């Protein structure tokens, strides 16, 4: 079984050669790594990876296959975080070309092919992690020896893969956000979810608790929405490249309803609050990021996927730092001193990754009920 050879060209000038996985198309993007050992289906279907080439540090990926892909987005199938594969490409050391697990209906290779996403197997992924780390960020191209097309970037298709595509230079949220408003579930309280590339498990987490949700396109005017609370979702790219989203969030803050920002949503809320959000050298992407509650002795392991953080000291005085990273002390969550506004950099909805901070949803939803009764 000889596979087509593929070159990974790094922005540092290095070139590595492996074999093809998935679709034989050219691609490029920001090279990022995750150290998670499970949850590749969840990661690759996570819209936050749009424009990025994901390196899995763990060498054996695809062992338990993945369920047959979801047919209907509204079903919010488990294991998937959206209907698509958003990453620009995948780099792994060893793949699995058979289906063994009882929940599994297809292989990583087949799935990537069907989604038009290229990947490379057989590379020294630990070396790539070290390179990304030491360069403080890298870009890369995936160049199959017999490429038959290019990885689609949707609205950004004007960008050719001749250059390294940098998602942080473009308003990529527009590409992954829903095109129309959608309502799920039925309940006394409706939560409005700004979709900047929302992971399905955020929606599932709310639905499972019996709340009604409305998913909104990124540019929705908040005054057009009737809801009890707001969620600002996760999403890809640079929070400073989101047009006037900051202003819309300021507008919805005036309603004084509970707000929960997650990941990109956290960064956008911070921007709206007046803080500065800056690029990190290589971000946090793993299932083992430790965060602690500021002022308390309690800490949690979280699932994370981000390249930006709040600049130290830029947070206005009426906001408090809620969480910090145990390893590098970076800000991982904020809350308003008097108003019900909170946000976290990590993913309480996990999927994949640890579920230790799922209580944040409970706390938020309790707050929504309380707020609604006042």
């Amino acid at each position, binding site marked *: 079984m000889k596979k087509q050879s593929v070159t990974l060209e790094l922005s540092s000038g290095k070139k*590595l050669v492996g074999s093809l996985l998935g679709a034989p198309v050219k691609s490029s993007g920001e090279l990022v*790594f995750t*150290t*998670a*050992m*499970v*949850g590749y*289906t*969840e990661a690759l279907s996570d819209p936050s990876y749009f424009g990025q080439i994901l390196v899995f*540090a*763990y*060498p*054996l990926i695809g*062992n*338990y296959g993945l369920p047959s892909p979801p047919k209907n987005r509204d079903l919010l199938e*488990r*294991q998937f975080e959206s209907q698509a594969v958003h990453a620009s490409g995948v780099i792994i*050391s*060893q793949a*699995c070309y*058979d289906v*063994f*697990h*009882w*929940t599994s209906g297809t292989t990583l290779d087949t799935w990537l092919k069907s989604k038009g996403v290229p990947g490379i197997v057989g*590379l*020294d*992924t*630990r*070396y790539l*992690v*070290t390179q990304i*780390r*030491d360069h403080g960020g890298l870009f890369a191209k995936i160049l199959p020896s017999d490429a038959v097309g290019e990885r689609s970037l949707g609205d950004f298709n004007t960008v050719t893969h001749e250059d390294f595509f940098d998602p942080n230079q473009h308003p990529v949220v527009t590409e992954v956000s829903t095109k129309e408003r959608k309502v799920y579930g039925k309940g006394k309280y409706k939560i409005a979810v700004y979709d900047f590339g929302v992971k399905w498990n955020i929606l599932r987490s709310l639905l499972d608790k019996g709340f009604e949700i409305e998913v909104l396109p990124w540019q929705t005017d908040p005054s057009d929405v009737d809801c009890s609370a707001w969620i600002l979702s996760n999403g890809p790219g640079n929070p400073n490249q989101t047009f006037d989203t900051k202003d819309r969030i300021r507008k919805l803050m005036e309603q004084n309803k509970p707000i929960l920002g997650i990941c990109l949503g956290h960064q956008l809320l911070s921007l709206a609050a007046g803080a500065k959000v800056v690029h990190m050298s290589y971000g946090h992407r*793993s*299932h*083992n990021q*430790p965060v*602690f509650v500021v002022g308390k*002795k*309690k*800490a949690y*392991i979280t699932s994370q996927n981000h390249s930006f953080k709040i600049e130290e000291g830029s947070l206005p005085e009426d906001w408090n730092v809620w969480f910090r990273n*145990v*390893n590098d002390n970076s800000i991982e969550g904020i809350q308003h001193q008097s108003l019900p506004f909170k946000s976290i950099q990590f993913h309480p909805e*996990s*999927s*994949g*990754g*640890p*579920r*230790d901070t799922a209580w944040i949803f409970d706390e938020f939803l309790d707050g929504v009920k309380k707020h609604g009764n006042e």
Partner: protein
Amino acid sequence: MATNKGIARNRKLLLLGSGGLSIGQAGEFDYSGTQAIKAIVEEGFEVLLVNPNIATVQTNPIPGVKVFLYPLTSLWVEKVIDQERPEFIVGSFGGQTALNCLIELEDQGILARYRVKNLGTSVNTLKMTEDRQKFAEQMLLLDIPIPPSVACSTTQEACLAATKISYPVIVRCAYALGGLGSGFADNEKELIDLVNQGLSCSPQVLVEKSLKGWKEVEYEVMRDRDDNSITICNMENFDPLGVHTGDSIVVTPSQSLTDDEYQKLRNASLKIVQELKIIGECNAQYALCPETSEYYIIEVNARLSRSSALASKASGYPIAYIAAKVILGSSLVALKNPVTGITSAFYEPALDYVTVKIPRWDLNKFKSVSKSLGSTMKSVGEVMGIGRNFPEALQKAVRMVNEDSTGLGKSLDFFDKDKETLEETLENPTDNRLFYILQALRLGYSVEFINKVSSVDKWFLSQLERIVVNENQIKDFSRKASVQKDIFSFLSSIPQDDLKSWKKVGFSDNQIINLLLEGRSDDFLKNQSRFELEKALRQTRKSRAITPVVKKIDTTSSEYPSPSNYLYLTYDGDFHDHLERDNKRSILILGGGAYRIGASVEFDWCAVACSEQIQASGFKSIIINCNPETVSTDYNSSSSLFFEELTVERILDIAEFEGTKEVVVSMGGQLPNKLAGSLHSYDFNLLGHSFSTIDMAEDRNKFSSLLDKIKIDQPRWAKISSPEALNHFIEEVGFPVLLRPSYVLSGAAMKVAYNKESLDRYLDFVTDLSKDYPVVVSQFISGARELDLDGIAKDGEVVFTIVSEHVENAGIHSGDATTVVPAQRLYVETVRKIKRAARQIARGLKLNGPFNIQFLAKDNQIKVIECNARAARSFPFVSKVCRINLAKASAEVFLGRLPLSLRHTEDELQYVGVKAAMFSFSRLKGADPVVGVEMASTGEVGCIAESFEGAMLLAMEASRVKLPEKGILISAGDEKSKIKFLDIIDDILAFHVPIYATKGTSLFLEERGVKTISLPWPGEGNGNVIDYIKNGGIDFVINIPKSSDLKELTRGSQIRKTSVEFGCSLITNVEKAVACIKSFSQKGPFRLNHKIKNLPGFLDNHHGNFYES
């Protein structure tokens, strides 16, 4: 007492160790105890360690630590508490033994009486996790699913429960190490047998739903006082549920679990530790259904365990060290992981490699033992292979666990089973199942089929299939390749990608050569020497840049830069990790590999001490070892650790990477010592003894002619290749003779033939005595004393010797014998002769390093049995008793220096040290628990006291020989040994328990005025000796086999097996019985008057500097 400034006044902490090594509780607790001690001392406490395991690193009397070599029973620990008055006690680093002892101390009110505070998980919680009924109730409360089960205290209850749950069921025993007394029952008969046995050692058994075929998954969890909790890593068993996890092949991290399954079990683990308020480390075991993802919790161990030692080495997270800090009150969030130096201890390691643990079974050492694996653990050790893919890690582990194996690539020649037998072999796990699965794949059986019969996950099987595919590729290449002008051109014609792929899936050069040879029908390859072939392949690979890369284990998958020095090699990678270099002289130290019968924690002690001394001398020590249960594989035992195979190929790789050829082979036991020849031929510089010294000591002929030359007597011996020659030899020297095959044959080990009958039995067994399969026969001298001389020589001159004496007469393997230092019963003249002989041998062999010589002494005459030109098993024992660290002194010799402060002699000792063997027969169903010329013990203990009797008593109790309380049985063997009992009969009477005896013994004693209760032999009617043992009327059994009589061997064997099964103290050697009974008879006054004494420190200045004493 140490007066470190760091030690706060009265901040004393008593730490319970795990005692002698036994199956289910082995070297892993030296690792956990040693790490704990480091952490506790750092926190400013003085550690009072109670542990009679003298061969361990943790029982080194270092500053800040007082070592008490006492039995881990409440009686002795109370005495230590009474004398030392510690504030705190910690019981979670010494396995089940420590936990049981802690519970005893609490239950007897001792902790309360002396106001000793138990740190860590509360005794109530510990008891709850041990009591299966209470545990089940607690889990139900927490909404954690448990398999349907019922706790039973009678057989009737058990039968009823099993009917309700429906067969097959599993029976488990509460309060037991390694699943003792557990098993599967398919019907009522099997159930009753199991339950009877279980209830004999535990007040309660559990009858549970059998989950055969489910996946078994474990999580290692840590929680601090602030409720911060993490899982260190998870582990997936290759063998589905049903095989004890200690006997399973275990893979880290899990390979076949989805994120959802992984997180579900992780969540359950965190919930358990949080709700049970566990402080420190905890292990949780789950059953996971491969068809529905349903799960059950199986077991929770609220303490450090074998699994946590494995997890520690697999993940790079020093679990025991951090657990100790947490128990003392540190917050996980505030602690750093000392392995990485950068990440918090509140961090779950991300692995970017896979580890495979394979158990080491030594079942061939035990006659008639059952080889099937189940819920009772049987393995004596383990290894861990690390790779960037599963086949690579697995094949490494296969080579690590058995150094004669080259990997999975060679077909088993004993495999010729029909389909039915094959299916049975695949379905019913044994120590060889992995090899049968491989063979089934070779024979074309599908992954689906093997999965159906074995329930081994298809992913694992598909990975094994890759090995077979590559194997065929190698053979195909060889078959089709045209004959080249030389071996180099032949090897050069292997396609680059193929050779790379073979190495990637873990084939060793050796194994590739085997397969190339197998694939060829002509003599092209066979004409080459093995050494030349391997050398040529290595050269070919290197010239084509197919070499392994060095990677770090850093817990972060390289997310952060780390100074970690914990390394492994892989072919599944293209770049070395960045390592800091300096110009220090680097020395490789080879460890001892898997713990096994005959080589265990004592060699780890040697390797660690040697490494410390090399570091203290300002050089770089590089340890190579592959055993996760060791201290030598800890992150801070060396300058740099390669967790790697102890094979010539791998040692060469490491030597080339590190740019050194200096290697120590004599501190890890026989395994590294055996590599001396090959390393020598690859131009390594063996530190210490030269290769010709080692070779002369190992080669019987060469050693023998040396002894002849220097006129030192030895038992007569000959290498025999025909029955006629054997008879001729025996005619000359007479019976008894010692026989040993000079080739490996499973089951046929060393034997003593006492007469024609037993010789014939042996010859029946060794069917093909011939030139190809010769036997070494030697004169067996009965009634002789056996003596061990441990020493150090420099350039052929002895610089230090110490003599220890066996309590048992010659004929008991020195590893199983009870030994005493200083010798108690020797003539001054005999000692003089021994020392003189040692000096002559040292000169003759040009010994230059540690050595050990075994002698026989009879009638003031001595004979040499053998000489080992390496550190011996007895090194830690004699070092600690004499207060001279012989391993460190040896390291001085390796560095070319003369250790100076060795002028101490045994005459000056203020006390006596006794070392006794620990046996694990209770786990080895079917094995005859008798000692002889083949070693059978799994561990040892060593105790000191002012008199021999005192030290003997402590050593006996520490090795779990208990004072008779219900009844004693004497079956005294032949006439000679019967007479010896007359000496101790008054002592036996003084126990005031019924004395039972088998017929002959009873008659013999009665004739001499001693009344005993005569019991019929097994099978001779009701109320026979077996019934008494089973009913609990007898709890102490002395059974001396009459070595010549087959019938009695069998009857005796039944008595011995039953004694072990029902938890009696058992002694099978007459001299040991005499010494033991004599020491026990002093028990009363000894206990009253004995002043607890801690092991005094080494006489060097604790920094290993032998020049400044």
